[in-house]
């Protein structure tokens, strides 16, 4: 019996090859090929709030926060080799700092958010600093522990509003500011991050992920670079937290909720590890989906898991890597 063996043959589209270097500037179609997906993403994100009602605009805001976390997770995991489950830590620290500054000193959100972003990131980095020597699953476990740790400290000491939290923080003037602020930040963070990973620091971080001993032998201080990577991821995470506390005008223990650590992973798996855009897309799909499934009650979690398992089984490369391949390559089956 003749076995029908076939395999998929992939060829780069000629336009992809042509747009590889400076030649991308040679004609409009080449430039269009490069610009279209990027511009498309920005335009869709910018247009979404215009067609949605108030409720879904709010959902979009929290999707944006998860997108930032997912971006940070993907960056740390795929480019620096640190699987960081500390999303809740970033959100919590950022949220508490900006909320406390606002409630005790009465500073406006315009001041507290930047302050919380920067100092929150510094605090998170210092907290994670002793664990940077750990790798893989060990770092993941330790970073997962810190948010729980923070919750118990706040309860035990009865500080920062203890279990009740603090209400009555300043909120944003209107929904348009809320929604466009987060979308703007997501877009800027995304493109900045893509730029960053192709710069020398990104190359060094990938080197550290591949082989940290060789990086040491090349005279590079590995811990210093890992610290920078964590700081960058914490920066966007803490912004998310600071924004969240002002979005709801409230801070409390649920800022340290496990969702902030787990959902970014799901978004990254769905969107495609290492693509940076993928996790952002994943977050913008998963968060609204979990809202839409609210009607199913507890079954929602089951459906949610099914979708994830489906992705892991049938499209392990993730949405973005799949789309990118389709965009850049011809595929056809070939008899072997």
């Amino acid at each position: 019996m003749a076995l029908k063996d076939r395999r998929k043959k992939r060829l780069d589209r000629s336009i992809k090859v042509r747009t590889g270097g400076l030649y991308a500037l040679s004609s409009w179609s080449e430039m269009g090929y490069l610009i279209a997906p990027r511009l498309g993403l920005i335009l869709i994100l910018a247009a979404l709030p215009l067609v949605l009602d108030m409720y879904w605009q709010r959902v979009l805001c929290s999707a944006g926060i998860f997108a930032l976390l997912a971006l940070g997770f993907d960056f740390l995991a795929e480019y620096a080799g640190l699987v960081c489950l500390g999303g809740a830590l970033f959100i919590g620290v950022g949220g508490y700092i900006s909320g406390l500054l606002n409630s005790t000193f009465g500073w406006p959100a315009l001041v507290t958010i930047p302050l919380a972003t920067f100092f929150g990131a510094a605090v998170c980095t210092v907290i994670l600093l002793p664990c940077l020597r750990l790798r893989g699953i060990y770092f993941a476990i330790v970073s997962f522990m810190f948010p729980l740790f923070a919750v118990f400290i706040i309860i035990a000491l009865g500080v920062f509003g203890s279990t009740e939290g603090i209400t009555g923080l300043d909120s944003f003037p209107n929904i348009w500011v809320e929604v466009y602020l987060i979308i703007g930040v997501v877009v800027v963070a995304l493109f900045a991050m893509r730029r960053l990973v192709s710069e020398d620091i990104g190359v060094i971080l990938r080197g550290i992920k591949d082989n940290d001993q060789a990086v040491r032998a090349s005279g590079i201080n590995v811990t210093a670079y890992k610290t920078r990577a964590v700081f960058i991821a914490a920066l966007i995470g803490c912004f998310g937290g600071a924004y969240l506390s002002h979005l709801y005008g409230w801070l409390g223990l649920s800022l340290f909720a496990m969702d902030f650590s787990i959902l970014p992973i799901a978004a990254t798996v769905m969107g495609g590890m290492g693509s940076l855009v993928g996790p952002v897309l994943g977050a913008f799909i998963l968060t609204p989906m979990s809202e839409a499934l609210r009607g199913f009650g507890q079954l929602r979690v089951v459906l949610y898991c099914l979708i994830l398992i489906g992705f892991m089984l049938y499209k392990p490369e993730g949405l973005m890597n799949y789309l990118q391949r389709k965009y850049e390559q011809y595929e056809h089956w070939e008899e072997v």
Partner: protein
Amino acid sequence: MSGECILEVRKLSKAFGGVQAIRNVHFSLMEGEILGVIGPNGSGKTTLVNLISGFVRPDTGQVFFKGKEITGLPPHKIANLGLTRTFQVMRPYHTLSAFKNLIVPLNSPRVRQSRGGKLGDTDAVAIDILDEVGFERDARVPFKTAGSLPLGYLKRLELARCIALKPEVIICDEVFSGLSMSEITSMIPLLERLRMDGITMIMIEHRLRELFRLADKVIVMNFGEKIAEGIPHEVMENEMVKKAYWGTEKKTS
């Protein structure tokens, strides 16, 4: 050779649990020299490299580099002083293309300093260095991912990563192992050129014939101890060395 002592190892010892990996090793290295280190498997050669380059902390003993003590410094600081090493099991950054592998050493404080704080186009510098070690400039080899390169290129890449640091001492941990004869013969001129550039080298090697062509001095290790030191061919006449390599003669009655 110019006769300045660049590296001195004094009474170095290291035990891993109950195994004495290195015991009281003692040697010094003149500037511009090539020192060969040979010995049977498990005699502590690679541990010696790890101790000198800072990857493993010695139990006792000291290492001096250009008159300054470097014992116990972290590896990246030692590398920045100008002492670097290759790895026996090659450690390229698999996911990066070959020339991007060199971006890492090119960003080290040592190289930054030598360029007056400005790095300029590191990609171009990286491709120049790869060209120097025998990556054809016109071919696409420098742009391939390191994971897909054949062994010969990987060995050259290891060396290139050291050269990019502009070091004064390179410790080569078995650069010839796993290479074919023709690859080795093309590698030797590269090492000779490094010596001409004034780079001092320590070569750990099992390929004695090729090593003896290059080395000025050889030390022989066995069970963590230095058992002989001298001019390459003379060393092999030493009784201890013969015993280490061939074993003691069994008396047959």
